């Protein structure tokens, strides 16, 4: 691992690859400058995740704040195994899941063991802007959106999603199918 001087790093906060073990150790020691450096570097990416999981901008901001506080409080548990960004991402996803577990009390997850077969009609996706796509995802009901994010974007399987959300595998499948159908419907209405 390359050794970099913290003081030099802080002068150039927006360079790629600056988050080293030294910076993390400095954050653990409580140096505000290093903590801000870490925040400035990762905040845009993590805010993107929060926007996908939150249904609106203020909720995403809350998730970002809550997630970063968790990151700084648990930083000493990071064992430098795997990517640091992946570790942070996992914390933000868990924060989003916890948030919706508390707020929605799982009312959005309707227990359906057998997913209803929903016919998906082909929609031209090429011309859709990222911002529009984000809005379409945000409009999804919380349960649909959470399962869709976990399955389609994060790459978890239904068994893992069921475990994470405390729902059955079948419910996860049905939520995904409905999420896809709703997405297609909403995308169609945008065009």
């Amino acid at each position, binding site marked *: 691992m390359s050794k970099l001087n913290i003081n030099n790093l802080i002068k150039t906060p927006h360079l790629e690859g600056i988050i080293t073990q030294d910076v993390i150790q400095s954050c*653990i*020691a*409580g140096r*505000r400058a290093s*903590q*801000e450096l870490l*925040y*400035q570097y990762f*905040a*845009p*990416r993590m*805010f*993107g995740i929060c*926007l*996908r999981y939150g249904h609106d901008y203020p909720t995403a*901001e809350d998730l*970002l*704040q809550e997630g*970063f*506080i968790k990151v*700084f*409080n648990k*930083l*000493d548990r990071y064992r430098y195994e795997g990517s640091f960004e992946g570790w942070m991402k996992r914390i933000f996803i868990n924060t989003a899941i916890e948030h919706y577990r508390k707020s929605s009390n799982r009312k959005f997850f309707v227990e359906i063991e057998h997913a209803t*077969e*929903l*016919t*998906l*009609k*082909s*929609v031209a*996706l090429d011309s*859709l802007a*990222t911002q529009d*796509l*984000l809005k379409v*995802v945000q409009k999804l009901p919380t349960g649909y959106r959470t399962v*869709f994010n976990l*399955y*389609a*974007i994060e790459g978890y399987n239904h068994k893992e999603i069921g475990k994470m959300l405390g729902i059955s595998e079948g419910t996860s499948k049905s939520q*995904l*199918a409905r999420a*896809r159908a709703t*997405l*297609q419907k909403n995308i169609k209405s945008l065009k």
Partner: protein
Amino acid sequence: MNDSNEHIDDLFKNGLDGIAPTPPNSNWQKIANQLEGEELDAYVADNLNKIEVDPQPEIWNNIKKKLPLSLLVRNQLNWLSGIAAALVIFMVAVLLLNPKETITTNTPIAQSEKTTTPLEITPLEEEVDFVFAIEEDKKTTSASEELSLEDEKTIEDFWSFVMDDDEDFVVDEALIEKSLEPILPLPVEDSEAYLPENLKSLEPVYEFSQEPIFLPEVENFTIVN
């Protein structure tokens, strides 16, 4: 045996080789849905997986207010508080496992004793020997501890003994009244009248060669188990 097996194999091979049943349409629909769904997933993932949005600057200020000073210090404090908690638990466990040591001894609630301490003041040798005897009622009271069941029983026995009507016991009311009369101070002018005859002619000198001796308080009590 081998010939017959080969014969069966050939039979199945010839019978099933060219089979081509038409699958139901619903099967294709499922596959198409899956492909369509996966296509949609991939499209959304490609577009939204790497999005970066700058949050409002106030967010960092809010986060800053809630951050711990140092995880290292916090961990040290946690470690110390853990040791303190373990010590407390250990002490409580020791106290709970040895209850006999914690029970208070059967100390009487209050013990009062009359101790008579004569205080002697020796006058000058050439003067008349006066001995003043001062009786001091000293009440020594032990602090009342928490009452155990045995203590309460002892008190009950005592009161039952006190309240018990004893026909042989005669109350001398006159003696009680006399004891309740206030003790009048001896008038200085008439003090000579109480002196023996051979001492009346002597001039009393009220100077003392030494300071009056005050004997130390006597705490003479016993603990009855």
